[in-house]
Each structure stands twice: as structure tokens, then as C-alpha cells.
């Protein structure tokens, strides 16, 4: 398979082709406006992680790894476990990704992913306390983008949900002197709800779902909305240097909730079957 150079700067010809297609309700890769690319999920791809998943969304490929360790709580939340989310677009992921500390895009990706987990109540942090003010579970979720063809918020959320749903935590025991004994056996990390991100882009005034890199380069604005298993909105983020009308905002909320249900079901099935693909 020859590599197609995915350009961040889109040529004039491509631009006008894209515009022509969008007017007809189609996209350059043949999709309908609100059609998602093929999604596949593999579970447990990293044995050393407490939970992990590889997600392919079209040509985008992401691995999320969760590590559940024991540690000390933050002073202002002595009775709650910790969650730390990071994201990196690795230099292997595209011609435009550079080595070095996360840039603002990667930081935004990590922070929006963090909000999805935290605000949905996916993890019950009070249950992740072992001894108040002393010992808690720390949940680290690290997202690595291996190939970037757009839709990173969505693909990351699917990878995170899959990784945490299949993650375990080490069992612990408190010794008489108050120190913590970490056992070799594990229990499931209890997950309450599945927060699913859906991202829309506005290109030439048309709304498309699940934009790829080329479409992102052309988009005026982007909206990501995250819904939980009850269909509630738990996180949101507008991006890009363009605008949405009030009506578009409300319409996208409706579509996001709808699509969230389908995607959540596909991910749920994968997790329940422990199977390789959706």
C-alpha cells in the first residue's frame, strides 16, 4: 500500500473538489456528510498496562493505556483517587508532528479527554480511596497517537473508554502500622458510564461528522460534544477560528446524542465480547 500524503495545506484543486462534493452532500473520501469512518477496536494490546486499547478510525490509529497504581491523594481531595490524563501526537504519527513536549493541540486533546472521564462520573473517585489522606488509587490514562488522520478527540475517547472498561487495579491491604501492602492479584476497575465523543466540522457552511486531516485543514470551525450512557452531555469544546450559529449548536447536540448511542453500543459489544473488532 502506498502512502497517500495527507496534507495540512490543501491544494486549490482539492479545495474546489471538496466544495463541489459537499454541495452534493458527499465528501472526497466518498462518505455522506454525517457518516463515520470505519471503526475498529482491539482490547488489551499492551500487556504491561492495567487496561489498554488500540483504536483505528479510518487511517487514524491511537493506543490508550491505563495504569492504575497506588499513591497519595492531593491535599484538597484527601478522600478521592486521582486521575491524570496525557496525550501525545507522536513524531511517527504524521509529517507534521514534531518531537518535544505536547503542543497546544495535544494539551487540548488531553484536557477534553480528561473532562469526558471526570465529568461523566465514569470513575467513582471516592471508591478509589484506600485510606483517607494517606492512600488512594491513581489512575493514569495516556493516549498515544500513532497515525494522525484527524478525529483525534473521538478516537481518543473510544480508546480511553475501552481501556478503562477492561482495566484492573491491584488489591491492597493496610498493615497494622498503616503502611500499604499491594498484592499481586487484581480486581476490575469499576466503570459507571461510557462517555463518547463526537466531533463535527463546518466546511463551506456544511456540517460533517468525523472530519479527517484534510477536512480539518479546510474547516472553519469544529465542535466536539461528549455524551454519557444516559445521553447526558458531559463535555464540549469548540475549536477552529470560525463560528457556529445558535441553531447549529442545538442541532449538533441532537445529532451528537444520537450518534453517541450507536457508537457506545458498538464499543459496549466489543468490551462484552472481549473480541478483536467491531
Amino acid at each position, binding site marked *: 500500500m502506498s502512502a497517500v500524503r495527507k496534507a495540512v495545506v490543501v491544494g486549490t484543486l482539492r479545495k474546489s473538489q471538496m466544495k463541489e462534493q459537499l454541495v452534493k452532500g458527499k465528501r472526497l473520501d466518498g462518505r455522506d456528510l454525517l457518516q463515520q469512518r470505519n471503526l475498529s477496536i482491539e482490547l488489551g494490546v499492551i500487556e504491561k498496562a492495567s487496561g489498554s486499547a488500540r483504536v483505528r478510525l479510518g487511517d487514524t490509529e491511537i493506543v490508550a493505556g491505563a495504569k492504575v497504581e497506588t499513591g497519595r491523594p492531593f491535599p484538597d481531595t484527601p478522600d478521592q483517587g486521582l486521575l491524570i490524563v496525557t496525550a501525545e501526537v507522536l513524531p511517527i504519527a504524521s509529517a507534521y508532528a514534531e518531537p518535544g513536549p505536547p503542543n497546544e493541540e495535544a494539551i487540548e486533546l488531553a484536557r477534553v479527554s480528561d473532562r469526558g472521564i471526570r*465529568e461523566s462520573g465514569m470513575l467513582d473517585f471516592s471508591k478509589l480511596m484506600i485510606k483517607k489522606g494517606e492512600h488512594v488509587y491513581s489512575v493514569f490514562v495516556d493516549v498515544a497517537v500513532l497515525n494522525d488522520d484527524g478525529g483525534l478527540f473521538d478516537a481518543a475517547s473510544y480508546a480511553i473508554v475501552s481501556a478503562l472498561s477492561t482495566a484492573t487495579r491491584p488489591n491492597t491491604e493496610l498493615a497494622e502500622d498503616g503502611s500499604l501492602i499491594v498484592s499481586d492479584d487484581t480486581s476490575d476497575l469499576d466503570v459507571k458510564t461510557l462517555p463518547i465523543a463526537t466531533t463535527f466540522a463546518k466546511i463551506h457552511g456544511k456540517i460533517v461528522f468525523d472530519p479527517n486531516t484534510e477536512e480539518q485543514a479546510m474547516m472553519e470551525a469544529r465542535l466536539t460534544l461528549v455524551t*454519557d450512557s444516559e445521553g447526558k*452531555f458531559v*463535555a464540549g*469544546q469548540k*475549536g477552529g477560528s470560525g*463560528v*457556529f450559529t445558535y441553531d447549529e449548536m442545538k442541532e449538533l447536540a441532537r445529532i451528537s*446524542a444520537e450518534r453517541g448511542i450507536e457508537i457506545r453500543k458498538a464499543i459496549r459489544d466489543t468490551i462484552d465480547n472481549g473480541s478483536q473488532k467491531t
Partner: protein
Amino acid sequence: MKTALLNADKIRLDGRKLDELRPVKIEVGVIKNADGSARIEFGKNKIMAAVYGPKEVHPKHLTKPDRAIVKCRYHMTPFSTDTRKNPSFSRREIEISKVIRQALEPAIILEDYPRSSIEVYMEVLQSDGGSRCAALSAASVALADAGINMRDLVAGCAAGKIGGEIVLDIDDTEDKEGEADMPTGIMPSLGLVTLFQLDGNLSASEFQKTFDLAVNGCMKVYQIQREALMNKYFGQSEPMQESNE
């Protein structure tokens, strides 16, 4: 130990009604050296915004041949929070700087300033919840004060959910203990959304209601922004005209 954020009469901890904005005060042209500046007090938030430019782009390779670039920095001073904030730039500040930049860019007529940069600096001297919306509102006034060509002002205000009720303009305590926060920024005359974030827990109908309320709050902030600019440039405020002549 949760404090009740609303009393039996649905009055909030600071005495506000559900759809009431905190007191907002904007002053224009407060930093002598800047090309444009504004100071906003939004409840206990105290934020200074300054604009430098249009000016030459540094580093040079960032130059766009056909338009200006916007640089934006939202920063909190170490003394602005309850416990001292580390003065170095946090991930939160990087994210907020980005969303504010992308909220201002649609309003600025960038094509009018090719090969230049417009720099927007926001310093939070005291924070009290909703500081990104307040900073955005001040920055947009500072841009206007700098005489930068704009399509519209950008007004920011959050709405959210506390104690099961949808409320306007979440403050610090309500943000920490409440159920949802939806910072929103709009171009008020054009009716377009330029900043939108959400964290919390809202049903579909609550989402719509919260969004409408946030837009409403932005319109109130817009009124105050206009008055502030009128005050500086015409020595008086004029009532807002609903329709064009």
C-alpha cells in the same frame, strides 16, 4: 460535605437570582503603553487585557502573506487564587489561551493586516470562576480600543447547573460544587458562537436551556462592553439601538 448552593427561595449563595449576572464593570484604555487595553471586574474577577499591534511578526516564519496572525496569552498571577498559583504557564492556561484566540479570530478582520501580528495579553489579577469569559470580553474591548478592524465585539458569559437548576454566570464556588459549567462566547450583533466549552452533566433539554441562558448573559455583557467604549470615546453611554437606521 456539600454546601447548599441554593436556598429554599432559589437564591444563590451570593444573593443572586438564578438568571442574574454578577456585577460587571469595564474600563477602557487603562494601560498607557498598550495600543488598546481594558480592565474588567466580573464579580470578584479582576482582569487586565492589553493589545499590542498590528506589528511585525516574530519569529518571522509565522508570517502569513495575506493576513494577520493573532497571539493570545491568558495568564493567572500567582496571587489570583485561594492557594498560590505556580507562576509558570499551566496546561489549563495553554488550553484557555487557545480557545480565547479562536474566539477572537472570527471577529477580527485579519485580511486587513497582512504580514502582521496582533498580540492579546490577559492577566488575571484575581480569579472567581468564569475568568475565561471575563478575559475574552475584556480582550475584545481592548482590540476595539486598539482600533483593530472588527466584524463585531465578542462577549463572553457562562451558564451552568447548580442544585438541579439552570443558572447564569457560575462563580468559583458554584463551579467547584455545581453540576455543569458552559462557558460561551458570541458575536452579539451577528448572532454567532465563537467560544463554547462544557463540563458537567446536562440532559438534552437542559443543554438547550443552558445554552440559551448563556447567550442571554453574553448579550448583557455586550451592553456593558458597548457602554464602556462609548464612555471612553464619546464621554457618555448611548442606549443600544435594536435596529439599524
